């Protein structure tokens, strides 16, 4: 078994997804099946073959650094779940102590 239920739970925590136990029971065997299938790539003799991350071969593309129109603060905050004093309002990010 390439992936265990505990590993799936760990990866879900790292991915910030609060999976329920029922979902874990359902997802873990499916992921195990998928990983077993995709592991076929390991059969390929690829010694010395460079990896491709991207097909165009373009690197470090920059456009000219010219000021242009951008969103106003009101537009930028318009879709925020919570706003305070022209800022995104978020839940606390540090522990109590």
């Amino acid at each position: 078994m390439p992936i265990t239920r505990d590993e799936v739970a760990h990866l879900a925590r790292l991915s910030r997804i609060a999976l329920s136990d029922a979902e874990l029971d359902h997802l873990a065997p499916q992921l195990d099946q998928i990983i077993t299938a995709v592991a076929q790539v390991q059969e390929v003799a690829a010694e010395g073959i460079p990896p491709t991350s991207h097909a165009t071969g373009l690197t470090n593309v920059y456009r000219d650094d010219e000021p242009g129109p951008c969103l106003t603060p009101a537009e930028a905050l318009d879709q925020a779940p919570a706003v305070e004093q022209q800022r995104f309002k978020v839940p606390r990010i540090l522990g109590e102590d």
Partner: protein
Amino acid sequence: MTAAELAAALERKEVSATEVTRAHLDRIAAVDDRVHAFLHVAADSALEQAAAVDAKRHNGEPLSPLAGVPVAVKDVFATKGLPTTCGSRILEGWHPPYDATITTRLKQAGAIILGKTNMDEFAMGSSTENSAYGTSRNPWDLDKIPGGSSGGSSAAVAAYEAPLAIGTDTGGSIRQPAAVCGIVGTKPTYGGSSRYGVVAFASSLDTPGPFGRTVLDAALLHEAMSGHDPCDSTSIDAPVPPVVAAAREADVSGMRIGVVTELSGEGYQPGVMARFAESVELLESLGAKVTEVSCPHFRYALPAYYLIAPSECSSNLARFDAMRYGLRVGDDGTRDAEEVMALTREQGFGAEVKRRIILGAYALSSGYYDAYYGKAQQVRTLIIRDFDAAFGQVDVLVSPSTPTTAFRIGERADDPMAMYLADLCTIPSDLAGNAAISVPCGLADEDGLPVGLQVMAPAMADDRLYRVAAAAEAALTGRWGRPLLAEAKGLPGEGDRA
């Protein structure tokens, strides 16, 4: 009417953009409760756009070829003033503050945006069953899937709710829905069409492209939406290949066509292979030189894709953090940001998106990276080399677009590996970043459902796709005596078609 015919009638002032738009809105009102192609119908803004085009035409101002022609837009493209959900609860009610480059280009061309079409959540799926807002239906048989992820777009065009639509193709999400709905769909060369304002799934693969009921229609939209965009750093700074001219020429005499050996065999429906073989013979009879070409690494394309795409998605979808836009769950003052994030993502994402995020996190984690993601990237190189070798011998490659015709809704919904096989033929071109099209080539004998012929061409040789597809379309339509879509029986009311 085709989009090209509509454009001509508009130009001759036989019909106004307002009339054309109303006719399509009426068609949507009449059939979309059954097809469910649209998540949002933008009737008011569409009629405003149409009135503006009519005013310009009345004043004799110069207009682009598609001015006044309606188009349906996959809900992955940012549209200012219209909702953009990506088929996900996490973006329910989100109104983007800006337009995607392609949205802007469609508006500038005077195309009328009818609304936003349904899709598998974040473009992950082959059936629209992964949409948080219900499944779209195949106009050939309402119990069958319309393909995915751009299944709302393919269903809308096949149901005559829109003459044209745009979608995105990451592993086949334009060509597979086009094939199973009996219409034309193109994945342009990666970088040939802008990704700016397209909600990202797998950035090295995502490619916007057109749907149409004819090859020429797809070419007209392809030309209007494509071209260099400084806002997309992977956009190719080169002229758009002459796709419209190629679709009009439709001449394959002397072209070298390679049949890919590896895209056939076990798992391929006999009726699909029969129509494919006939199409190849037909192209040969039109003067093409047909040979068989082997691409030995294509059998590893599917596993490589299901490592690369989830890896990129696990990174891209980290942006849905409940902080700046979109859904926020559980922010009651007792929970910290991480807890709110995890609860929001739990409730906001569907099962397939969670599967892929976790799969990607696994493939990228230290200890597994070299064995999975790294290896998949090397396989990607080998697939590109297979294509390079093949295109040294032939001008285009052909295969079926999908191994089977449309399957029944629910049949593969909870079997991810079975669902993934729908993209078996389309994935190689995504990994290589080259261009490919699906064009209808007949109905399978077993089920009477449409079969797609896939044509693949080297990067930035998109015009070859249209040359071959248009030649096949002309010859096949001549043989059938009428367009294939005339055989679609899923919806009544031939007469009320726009």
